[in-house]
């Protein structure tokens, strides 16, 4: 009970401290929804555009509240594949989580190495620059056959998350102030101590930026990752399935789900970053 009270107090304090930002965010979101509603009404020839002829493709832009209704309904009724939205969300979260952990495990050491070693930079850079611009969609048929149905979709997500983390960590490792390294060396720090006590902490804010950008791109890749051979469905699969049948309102519900999931995962990363900064004494 005490814990709950503390959390509520913290939340109240945060709201009072940031009420201007919260208000602006709310107004921005409301403007977006209002713009969507007006465009939809304009296409449908509804109020305040009564008398205007309904456009043929009006159904491609349904009203926000219709999408909201279908979004809620998708958790209560199965779709054409016999799955609930909740099951799709779990399937996608699993892929994002495994892809993210893999990307973290590979990109952080690779970025640190490339940032601090000229040889590693010379070896890694051509491969990174060559592979980075290739859209994950292009890999789908290859990954599906070579890496099979479990790892194939995960690796598509991995690609989306990997490069932002790698590039940010590399930038962080390169940007370490030489004065700090000299000071540590003067105080008698060994190479490993300089790495773990100076370079690595200095890179953390860059890593967190990479994680937040990477998670967003990871969610962008989910449709490509799940459009084929996705075992157990997924929100991307849901979008692909409903788009193929012109169930556009349902498709929008899938898009809203991905947006919300991205906001939640990036928000969690932001919270973790704040905790980490506090723990490291940076804020």
């Amino acid at each position, binding site marked *: 009970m005490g814990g709950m009270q503390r959390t509520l107090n913290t939340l109240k304090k945060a709201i009072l401290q940031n009420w201007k930002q919260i208000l602006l965010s709310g107004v921005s979101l409301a403007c977006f929804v209002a713009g969507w509603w007006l465009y939809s009404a304009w296409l449908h020839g509804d109020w305040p555009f009564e008398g205007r002829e309904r456009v043929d493709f009006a159904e491609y832009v349904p009203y926000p509240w219709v999408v909201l209704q279908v979004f809620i309904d998708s958790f209560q009724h199965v779709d054409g594949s016999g799955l609930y939205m909740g099951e799709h969300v779990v399937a996608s979260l699993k892929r994002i989580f495994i892809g993210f952990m893999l990307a973290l495990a590979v990109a952080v050491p690779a970025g640190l190495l490339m940032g601090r070693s000229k040889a590693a930079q010379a070896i890694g850079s051509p491969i990174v620059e060559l592979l980075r611009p290739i859209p994950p969609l292009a890999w789908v*048929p290859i990954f*599906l056959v070579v890496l099979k149905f479990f790892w194939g979709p995960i690796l598509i997500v991995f690609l989306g998350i990997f490069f932002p983390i790698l590039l940010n960590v590399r930038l962080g490792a390169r940007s370490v102030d030489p004065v700090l390294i000299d000071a540590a060396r003067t105080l008698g720090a060994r190479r490993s101590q300089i790495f773990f006590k100076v370079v690595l902490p200095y890179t953390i804010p860059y890593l967190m930026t990479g994680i937040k950008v990477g998670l967003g791109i990871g969610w962008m890749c989910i449709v490509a990752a799940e459009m084929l051979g996705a075992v157990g469905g997924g929100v991307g699969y849901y979008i692909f399935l409903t788009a193929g049948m012109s169930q556009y309102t349902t498709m929008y519900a899938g898009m809203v789900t991905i947006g919300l999931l991205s906001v939640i995962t990036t928000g969690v990363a932001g919270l973790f970053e704040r905790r980490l900064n506090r723990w490291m004494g940076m804020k």
Partner: protein
Amino acid sequence: MDKKILIAVAVAAVVVVAAVAAAVILSEGEKVKSGTVYYITLPPKDMRAALSTGQIDAYIAWEPFVSDSIVGEVGEILKWSDEIIPNHPCCIVAVRNEFANGPDGSQLTLRFIKAHIEATKWMKDALGDTGSAEYTLLVNMAVQFTQRNDSVVKAAFEHIEYGYDMNTNFRSALEQFTDMYIETNMTTNASLAARGYSSVEDFVGKYVNGSYLDDADSVSPNSTILNPDAPIRLGFLLGDLHQMAQVVAQNKTVTGTGTSLFETYGVKVVNATGAPFANGGAEMNGFAAGAVDMGYLGAPPAILNHLNAGIGTSIVAQANSEGSGIIVKAGSGITSLDGLVNKTVATPGESSIQFLLLKIALQREGFELKIKT
């Protein structure tokens, strides 16, 4: 008295034994098989590779992707689609209503359908005589269109029934498909009502427009092209052997006069922007965007996209029936649908006719089709 009691007991015993035996026999007879078959979605072009690497145990696809595995000895046929539903419809010819109702639209559609009929007849004749020059020409065209070798194409031709007629069987099959889509939430009765249809029968009755086929007899060859500056923009699917009629109708060597069948009937046809399309859903979006005037595609995507998004199209002819099959891995020992229980079958997607055929075949045997999780 004792004797009577003994007889009564004996009769009762016989009756009881007979009743038990009858119950056992009857329950055996009524025993419903149960089991689940799992599916995933894959494009047909990737199914052979997935089967050979053991990622899937079976797949259902259209030709030439069925014969591709058989000829390549990667797979064996488990069931041809005509064994599931004889003469089931597959690909159709659709027209954009706005185009058909526009200037010269009706006449252009009629001429197009006439060329489609003649192309289909030519194909049927060619396939009826495998030693003829026409058969060789057809195979060569199909090899080029599908990018498969002639052995695959020849094997595939044996299982496709080309035709243009839209008889009562065709219409009742479309009704059955629509009912199944409503059952599985892929479309709804509300969508049906929103498009102005009172029932599934009413929808099929109106969406299938047989008037062009009825009037086609009145069309004669015409050396004047009716639409020299506004060609019909044709949609079709990538390498789909079911849609060979449009390849034949566009070919300039078929008639022996140096003009294509479309030109013979005074109509200019060009491939639409985006054609060949990857799937029927993409082609229907082409119709919706006004980029496709007439097109060949599967009946299910035409139905679903028309009902769900109100894309203004009509079915004006059939392109083929049958021509799909369930393939299992060569040497797998699977010889009946029972063998697919707890196995993974790839399908081209929930909105495809192949998915419906698989579902129908499994339902008849008492099996359930569920997405692999």
